[in-house]
Each structure stands twice: as structure tokens, then as C-alpha cells.
């Protein structure tokens, strides 16, 4: 077998491009962009955040407890990093959320206020009053959670602040249900491709079971973020 002398470098280049491409698709969901980087670099002040959050509580409710009907998620106790990513993703069009978009607009909330709100929300208490599912398929939910979800979202649903993986414990069942469907169907747009891959073959019943299981993870098992 003869090979042209250029073959090896070209093959190498092609390979590295392919790898770079694959890497890009894996990291795009959490790509650094100037606004997000800027907010993540700011010091958030929880006291100021409480004031800035006033315009959010008409939907997310007092104490950021969200609504059991899933229309608005709980934000209390969520990692600041996750909140910053999601809010900046929404207002820069990376995450589809037409209801929230005007309220997250640049003329409404400054980047400092995003950092402040995130600091405030992260430290809020998470009472075990979240909406739960029917509770009739919890064995399946537990099996799926342990197999596919716990690796990132943690055994207790605590998430991972450094990796931008949200805390899921204490969240409303109906919100978890809807977002999992949107992520599986690739409609949320800013989801981690690893997660899309992990649940792409989930049936609606699988999603309902695992969302139900998540909504029942004991909130007290997640230590409050300092």
C-alpha cells in the first residue's frame, strides 16, 4: 500500500477538525460569551439582589418558590452559576423563553443585578412544599435517575455549581416534566447535548416517572450553598 506523503498530515488535520467540531457541539451549550463571563466575574450582593428580585416575584413568587402548576420554576436554593447562565441565556436568545424574555431584557436588569439576584436566590431556603407527581411509577423513576441523571445532578439532586448543572431537588414536578420534554425534543436550545443524548429515547412515561422521582428527593439532603 502506497500513501502520498501529504496523506498523514491531511488525515491528522481532518481528525483534529473532527475532534474540534465534536468538542464544539459538546461545549456550545455552555459556551463563554462576553455577557455571561462578565456576570460570572462579578461579586453578587444578596441584599441588593432581594431588591432587584422584586420585579421577578410577580411570576416566581415571594421567596422564589415558583408555582406547583409548573408555570414558573422554583429558583430558591438554585446554584448562582446556573441562575446566571439561564438568565443570560434567556435574554441573549440562547434559551427559548418568550414569556420571560421581556422581563429579563437589558433595559430591565443590569449585569450587576443578575449577579445580585443570583446571590440572593442561591441562599434562600427550600421548603419541602414543591409539587409532586402521582407517585405511581417511582421504581422506574428511581432506576432511570440512578442510571442516567445522578452522574451529573447528584445522588440527592444537588447538581454541580462548578459545572452549571442545576439542582433538581425541591423543584416542582410539573416544571421538571415540561423542561425534560423540551430538552429531549431539543426545544430548549441551551441544553447540554450529553443530557439530550441521555434521555433521547425516553418515552413520556419515562420522563413522568423520573420527574416524579426527582420531585420527591428530600430537600434537606442538599446542604445549603455557603
Amino acid at each position, binding site marked *: 500500500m502506497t500513501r502520498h506523503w501529504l496523506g498523514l498530515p491531511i488525515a491528522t488535520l481532518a481528525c483534529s477538525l473532527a475532534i474540534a467540531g465534536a468538542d464544539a457541539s459538546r461545549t456550545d451549550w455552555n459556551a463563554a460569551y462576553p455577557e455571561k463571563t462578565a456576570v460570572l466575574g462579578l461579586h453578587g450582593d444578596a441584599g441588593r439582589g432581594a431588591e432587584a428580585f*422584586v*420585579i*421577578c*416575584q*410577580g*411570576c416566581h*413568587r415571594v421567596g422564589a418558590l415558583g*408555582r406547583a*402548576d409548573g*408555570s*414558573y420554576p422554583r429558583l430558591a436554593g438554585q446554584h448562582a452559576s446556573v441562575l446566571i447562565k439561564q438568565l443570560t441565556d434567556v435574554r441573549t436568545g440562547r434559551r427559548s423563553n*418568550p*414569556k*420571560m424574555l*421581556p*422581563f429579563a*431584557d437589558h*433595559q*430591565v436588569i443590569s449585569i450587576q443585578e443578575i449577579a445580585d439576584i443570583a446571590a440572593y436566590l442561591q441562599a434562600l431556603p427550600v421548603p419541602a412544599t414543591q409539587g409532586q407527581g402521582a407517585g405511581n411509577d417511582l421504581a422506574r423513576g428511581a432506576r432511570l435517575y440512578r442510571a442516567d441523571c445522578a452522574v451529573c445532578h447528584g445522588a440527592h439532586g444537588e447538581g454541580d455549581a462548578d459545572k452549571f448543572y442545576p439542582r433538581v431537588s425541591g423543584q416542582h414536578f410539573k416544571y421538571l416534566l415540561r423542561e425534560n420534554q423540551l430538552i429531549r425534543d431539543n426545544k430548549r436550545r441551551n441544553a447540554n447535548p450529553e443530557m439530550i443524548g441521555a434521555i433521547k429515547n425516553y418515552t413520556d412515561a419515562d420522563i413522568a416517572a423520573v420527574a416524579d422521582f426527582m420531585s420527591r428527593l428530600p430537600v434537606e439532603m442538599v446542604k445549603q450553598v455557603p
Partner: protein
Amino acid sequence: MTGPRDLLGVLACAALLLQASPSAADAQETVKTVCAACHGADGNSTDPRYPKLAGMDQEYLMRQLKAFASGKRREETMSAIVAGIDPNDFSKLAGYYGKLKPAPGKVNDSRLAAKGKALYEDGNTDSGVPACTGCHQSDGQGNARFPRLAGQHQAYTLKQLNDYKSGRRATDPLMTTVGKRLTADEIKAVAEYVAGL
């Protein structure tokens, strides 16, 4: 210990006060001769087309006066009147009305008010209307950032919400969004409810 610096400060303050007092008198005069015709000398207008100003936060009222002056808030009559007022008096006029005692409003249609209460406290999750309580508080008393709504004339609240909806009033991007998401029926209901707060 008192030094020359402190004395200088006292003198400066005194000078400011002296300068301010004729303006305060002017403001009183302006209230009597200009504002009271529509808003009432006690800040509780009787004509529902004109808002009650009594008890509204001074900062909020000042922002509105500036918005009328700049054209950000459009109301031909009011803009023309504001154009004749010295902007240096805005603060005193706003302070004057802010300190007055608000008179309660009156609910005329309690069934409509009940619908308004549901919207005021819960919003509309389908259309993405936030609960009004989020910003305006459950008692509608208002503060520097968000206006007092409690006891306001139905007709006035109704017109403001419709003006946000149409884009005629553009003093707050959030309220523009809220106005656009509210239905005509919801606007009527919530205006009825806040009149009774």
C-alpha cells in the same frame, strides 16, 4: 469640636434653606393655581379622569413630571401644563402631594372586583401576566419604584393600562409588556379591584 469648617457648613446649609424657601412658597402657589384644578388641593381629585396623587411617593411623582416634560409620557393637556412649571419645583410639588392623606376609593361592581383580585394576586400564567402584587404589593400602597394604586379612580387606572397596551405610555418597559398581555376584560377587572384597596 466646632471649627471654621463646621461653621462654613452651617452657613452653606443656611444659604441653601434661604434659597429654597421662596421656591417652596412658589410650589404652594403652583399647587393652588395650577394643580388643584384637576388633582384637588388635598390631592384627592373628584373627577375620575384625573389621578389622585395624595400619598403617592415623591420620587415616583417626580419621575412622572420629568416624563411629561420630556415627552416620554404623552398626555397633551398635562404636558402643556408641565411645560409651564419650573423643573426646579418638581421635587417640592411631588413632595407636597406625597404627604397628603389619600382618600379611599369605591368599588362599584364587586363581581368584577373579585375577578380583578384574582388577577392582581395571581397573574395569568397562560399569557404570562405577572401578579401585580409582585411589584405593587398586596395592599397597593406603592413606593419610590412602583406607584401607589390603592383607591385610584377606575377610569384613570383603566386608561393607564390601555395606554401601556397601545404604547402611548412608555415610562416602563415592564408595564408595556404587562399591558400588551392583558385583555380588555382583565384591565377593567383589575382597575375595579384596585379602586377598593
